[in-house]
């Protein structure tokens, strides 16, 4: 009975539902939270859900990671598709860079205004 849990379609289903939930959590957090740190945290959760989905959908039971080892010595069919992993690795690096830049902006903004709430950011707009 436990074998049916270890099948590729089942795992793909779990990953799809889980990452969709995570994406929803992230987007709802970004829309409903007022604290700037929490907004950026929510956005990175939403981004992480996409990483999990993309890697997870290319995982198949019985295949190995596309890294040179005893089992994988050439470009063979018993390894998973390497392109998503390379893509996601690049994307994670970009996401970290963007997040750190965002946090540095938030810190600088807090130093200048002593404010972290997005609904109290009233510097911009039509001057009266």
């Amino acid at each position, binding site marked *: 009975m436990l074998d049916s849990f270890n099948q590729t379609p089942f795992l793909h289903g779990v990953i799809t539902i889980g990452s969709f939930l995570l994406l929803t959590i992230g987007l709802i957090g970004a829309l409903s939270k007022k604290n700037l740190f929490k907004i*950026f945290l929510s956005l990175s959760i939403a981004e992480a859900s996409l990483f999990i989905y993309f890697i997870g959908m290319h995982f198949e039971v019985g295949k190995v990671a596309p890294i040179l080892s005893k089992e994988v010595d050439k470009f063979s069919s018993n390894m998973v598709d390497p392109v998503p992993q390379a893509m996601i690795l690049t994307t994670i690096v970009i996401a970290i*860079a963007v997040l750190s830049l965002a946090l540095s902006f938030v810190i600088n903004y807090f130093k200048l205004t002593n404010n972290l709430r997005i609904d109290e950011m009233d510097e911009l707009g*039509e001057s009266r």
Partner: protein
Amino acid sequence: MSLIYFVVIPLLASFLTPFYKNYLKYISIGVNLLLLFLAIGFVSSAPLVENIAFDSALSISFVFDEASAFFVILFISIMLIFSIYNLQNENRKDIFILSNILLCGVLGLVLSGDIFNIYIFFEIVSIVAYILTSLNRDKQAYSGAIRYMIIGSVASIFLLIAIMSIYINIGTLNLVTIGERFGSMDLNIQFLILLSLFIGFGIKAEIFPLNFWVVDIYQASQNRVNALFSAIISKAYIFLFFHIAYTLKIEPKFLLFVAIIGAISFAISELSALSSRDMKRIFAYSTLGQIGVLFIALSYGNITVVSGAIFLIALHSITKVMLFFALDILKDRFNSVKVDIFGKFSSIFLLLIFSIGFLSLLGLPPFGGFIAKLTILKGLASLEAYMMIGVILIVSLVEAVYFFRLLALTQQSSQKELIQIPLLKKSVLAFLATMIVYFGIFPNDLLGVCQNVASSLLAGAGNV
């Protein structure tokens, strides 16, 4: 020679220049000139495809066809003008580093032949744009940068969703192959991908209803930077939006939807500009309005309309760069960007610059904007799209109201202050104004180029 130089040279220049801090501006101009010569040299060999790495399905590919060549040359020329304008600006040297990375990003965006590289360059351009927004380092600048980052992160999430859906369903990232296989996909997935692409690129291309953030960002950043935002970044995303749309061969009903959205964007932006009292915001609204016209024209898929739109892209870039530079001079003098500074300055030269800019944006002869709008309207008339013609003409009247109101302000007999403009800035502004008048009187050369560009854009990425 290789196409990768267009990305590598500006990137290398920006990373090496911190070591030569005092020569930064000269290096920048040198790099821009070098790239310009390189681009003009490549034009004769277009269309050109270059695959870097092993297998065409997975490799990095750069495509240099007539359309991307036009945008490459346009962006490099504007960056050259920007560097020359900033030559006397001693206090901020980091702007040259950022402008070089920005050039690397937009050239990569325009040249990339596969969608994941487009994502990478999308992020490079975004990060540079965030930093450029915060360049003033005051609370307005940081507030604008934070807003920009939030909306930019949402855009990149949706772009990633589109890229992943494409890879999972088609198994390729190459634009040409995606274009061939896109029609065979399930309709629901096609719709999901198109919607994600629309949100991802629509936010960056500043199209209604995804452009609510733009005006605040323009207000937060420096005028010189706004020139780059208006002339380079938004144009790069507009090109990408339609490049991908025509590559995927999407159905005309979706494109008609885009045209209607463009018309709404045009109307709302110009109406919002009427009530604004801040020059930066007025110019930002005007940019959004022109982008609405571009979306109307580019989505009709007719060669005359599209060539008019390409003409408008070139002219609008030149005009907005000129207007933002002129506003920068006023801002330096009065330390304000309220509309009442228009009643305070006394300078025939600046008055002439503003008049040429406004009249060209309105589309009045003998300026370049007239030819662009005339070509678009002629094309629309041949397609019998009379509703769109009506919208463009009526909303242009609204545009006329606020531009002529601004010009009327300059005739007020209040206390005037004489403005001294440095010779370098004066000659840059005069050159740009001459270009606008020249393309208004002798448009045929540029129109011929625009027709080639339009046919290349309409054929999509698979025409090579």
